[in-house]
């Protein structure tokens, strides 16, 4: 497999003006402005192979969107190099732009006042898609996303989820090889999220496209991405598969069991996370899991005992909780 996306020490630094609050500071700022150098992305490197679907995670302000913007040619890097399909994104060559797409959950490119079909036709012209191929792709996407009854309604009359599905169709009509998806399911209900996930998975499978996805919904990441890259304070924190992430960052495992007498004091075994009737879920340090499990089985009348890795949300939370110093 070849590298579809390759980053070498890619960095983006901003000079941000800053001052104290109040009139005095504002007046002072007229003569002498103070700037702070913000390292939005700080020398990150990774490669993504053609056809991979990679989750790009990090808390707000971690540098995810800035990275996606550099990879899609919207921003010029401060230093380092990026290569996407062997193009240098910052050059923004039309051949490059024809092969990629950037979908941002909070941005739209379809005309607000018109039915999506009209905007789709503009996409056809802009990307020089042969009419027959355009119609075939458009109708195929409309069918998969169940949009047939909606494409003739003005975009403004659609729900948020319906609009997002239309935006995705518009963004993929030219069948890009690279998909940069920035929070594509933002604000959508569970059903709509699932439908969009299924569509992205289907597109990846059908066209062998490479997908780099940011999302705060772990369900998106779990369903679509074998590999994840975690970025925090602009630095790369983790690059590997989901189970490795849990292994590296989760200090705990959860033990679930049914207890005959739920009133039993369990503090000596670990922290009780939840109790639902006789069903109890405990959190124990990872290295003590075997010992605690044995003691529970020996000392108490437990049933249906399960040991599981911490939920991915908890793992990610613990990753994000890493202090800035720890990644410098």
């Amino acid at each position: 497999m070849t590298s579809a996306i390759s980053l070498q020490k890619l960095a983006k630094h901003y000079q941000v003006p800053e001052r104290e609050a109040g009139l005095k500071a504002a007046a002072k700022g007229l003569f002498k402005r103070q700037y702070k150098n913000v390292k939005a992305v700080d020398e990150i490197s990774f490669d993504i192979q053609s056809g991979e679907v990679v989750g790009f995670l990090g808390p707000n302000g971690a540098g995810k969107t800035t990275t996606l913007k550099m990879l899609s040619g919207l921003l010029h890097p401060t230093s380092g190099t990026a290569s996407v399909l062997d193009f240098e994104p910052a050059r923004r060559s039309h051949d490059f732009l024809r092969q990629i797409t950037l979908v941002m959950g909070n941005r739209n490119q379809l005309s607000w006042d018109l039915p999506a079909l009209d905007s789709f036709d503009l996409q056809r012209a802009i990307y020089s898609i042969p009419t027959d191929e355009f119609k075939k792709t458009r109708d195929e996407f409309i069918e998969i996303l169940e949009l047939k009854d909606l494409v003739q309604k003005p975009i403004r009359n659609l729900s948020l989820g319906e609009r997002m599905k239309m935006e995705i169709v518009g963004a993929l009509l030219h069948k890009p090889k690279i998909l940069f998806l920035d929070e594509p399911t933002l604000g959508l209900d569970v059903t709509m999220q699932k439908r969009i996930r299924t569509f992205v998975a289907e597109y990846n499978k059908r066209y062998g496209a490479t997908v780099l996805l940011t999302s705060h919904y772990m369900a998106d990441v779990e369903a679509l991405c074998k590999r994840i890259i975690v970025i925090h304070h602009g630095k790369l924190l983790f690059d590997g598969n989901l189970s490795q992430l849990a292994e590296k960052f989760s200090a705990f495992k959860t033990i679930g069991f049914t207890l005959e007498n739920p009133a039993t004091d369990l503090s000596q075994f670990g922290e009780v996370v939840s109790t639902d009737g006789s069903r109890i879920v405990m959190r124990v340090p990872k290295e003590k899991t075997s010992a605690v499990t044995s003691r529970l089985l020996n000392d108490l009348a437990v049933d249906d005992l399960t040991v599981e890795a911490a939920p991915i949300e908890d793992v990610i939370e613990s990753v994000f909780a890493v202090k800035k110093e720890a990644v410098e």
Partner: protein
Amino acid sequence: MKRYIDIYLSMMKLSILEQWQYPLANYFYMIGMIAEPVIYMVVWSTVAMQQGGMVGGYTPGEFAAYYIVWTLVRSMNVVFTPYGWEWRIREGQLSMSLMRPIHPLHGDVAFFAGWKVVVIVLWLPLAFALTLIFKPELNPTLLEGIVFFFAIWFAYLIRTMTLTLIGLVTFWTTRVSALFELYFAAELILSGRLVPLSLMPEWIQSFAWFFPFRWAFGFPIESLVGNMPVNELLIGLGMQIAWIIVGIIFVNIIWKIAIRKFSAVGG
């Protein structure tokens, strides 16, 4: 070339469809816009009548003709403003435009060209009503009509280029309103928008020759109502083309520098 024609036609179609969604809003906008020339027309016609029926060679009927044509030229002059660039950057809309394999300027030119089609259709009954009320003296020749047709579209392109250049300043400042106001003040005086340039002092007329304002406003009107000799009509068109070329060159140079500064602040 075929690709660009397809894009322009598709974008113009989209623009026309969008504008027809709000015909009433467009009509109110145009009615609001004719208030300005009607005031000028009434003032200058009154002055002309008090001065024995003529001011600076203009009769009330010629003033009426000048300002009725003014309304069409003004409508053709509506382009994407620097405020639009501010909004576009702040709201992240520019990012979406930049993702397309085409310069955003093509989108702007085509979109507003489509809007002009709607504007002209809506302008016709307004012009008819103004003609009935103010009785303009207008007898253009075929050549003047042809020159006028090209001049209003060239004027549109000149103003697109100049306001795009000001709009590009937003890549550095994200606020450009002060500069636009300055431009607007110069345009008011040097373009023939406030009064026909021939009523201005000689030195202002000479001065105006070297700026784009006259070629984007006064010249198209004069080409239809001013009984200009053929050579002046052709020189005028030549000046318009020259300003369009200068505008394209500057927009391209500034764009290449500006795009490196783009911080995509709005998303």
